[in-house]
């Protein structure tokens, strides 16, 4: 089965990202496909490489990046939500006249159409958040 996930809450503040990650792992372990993981609302904060959790805690951002590297999972951050919250890749940073970018490896920034497409293309779209 083809799944897409939507992550609506920031890391550490809320369980949504942890649950989504574990769900994604189970999907892959079950031999299913992940079409896309879409990060929206505060969920875009899952994609900053500047995250520095204490060493004895899980690194939520690196976990997602590793999943993208190992399984080719498409991690998409919503551009409009990202702009509000200061998540930028090199292009976005330049375009908006900022002095830095912070996107984590394996993530890409794109539009809300990617979420709608995920809903159309996937057998199941599973949402994580409040």
């Amino acid at each position, binding site marked *: 089965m083809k799944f897409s996930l939507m992550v609506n809450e920031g890391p550490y503040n809320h369980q949504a990202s942890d649950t989504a990650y574990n769900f994604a792992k189970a999907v892959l372990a079950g031999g299913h496909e992940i079409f896309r993981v879409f990060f929206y609302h505060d969920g875009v904060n899952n994609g900053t490489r500047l995250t520095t959790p204490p060493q004895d805690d899980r690194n939520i951002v690196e976990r997602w990046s590793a999943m993208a590297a190992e399984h080719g999972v498409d991690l998409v951050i919503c551009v409009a*939500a990202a702009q509000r919250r200061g998540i930028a890749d090199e292009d976005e940073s330049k375009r908006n006249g900022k002095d830095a970018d912070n996107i984590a490896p394996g993530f890409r920034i794109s539009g*809300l*159409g990617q*979420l709608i497409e995920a809903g*159309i*293309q996937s057998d199941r779209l599973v*949402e994580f958040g*409040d």
Partner: protein
Amino acid sequence: MSETKKMLYINRNAPYGTVYALEGLEVVLIGAAFEQDVSMAFIGDGVYQILKGQDTSDSDMKNFSPTYNALGDYEVTKLYVEQESLDERGLTVDDLMPLVYEDEDDDWAEKPSIVLLSRAELAGVMAEQDVLFNF
């Protein structure tokens, strides 16, 4: 992407206080370009999103309620409002914005977009959907 799916955007949150309503509406407007069978539901505090006469001037929040008037032009014409959610908040349909659309199959006659449904009826609508978006 020729396949057409039934998509329901479920709005559960008040318009201000959290960003879910505003960013949820942005998804609906972008999604309209994909020519799917789209509808919206307003339940719980979500009914406050389409309350008439919203005034945010004292709170420095952007009043985005006029955007709901544009939904008809985006061919989002089915706005389901849960009757029990109105009742529980002491509201009636007269407290809501008179949202309308122009029916292209009926000589562009202006028709109300808001459809009042009971909780049980709305559950039936949800069960018919291919995709549910929760905001």
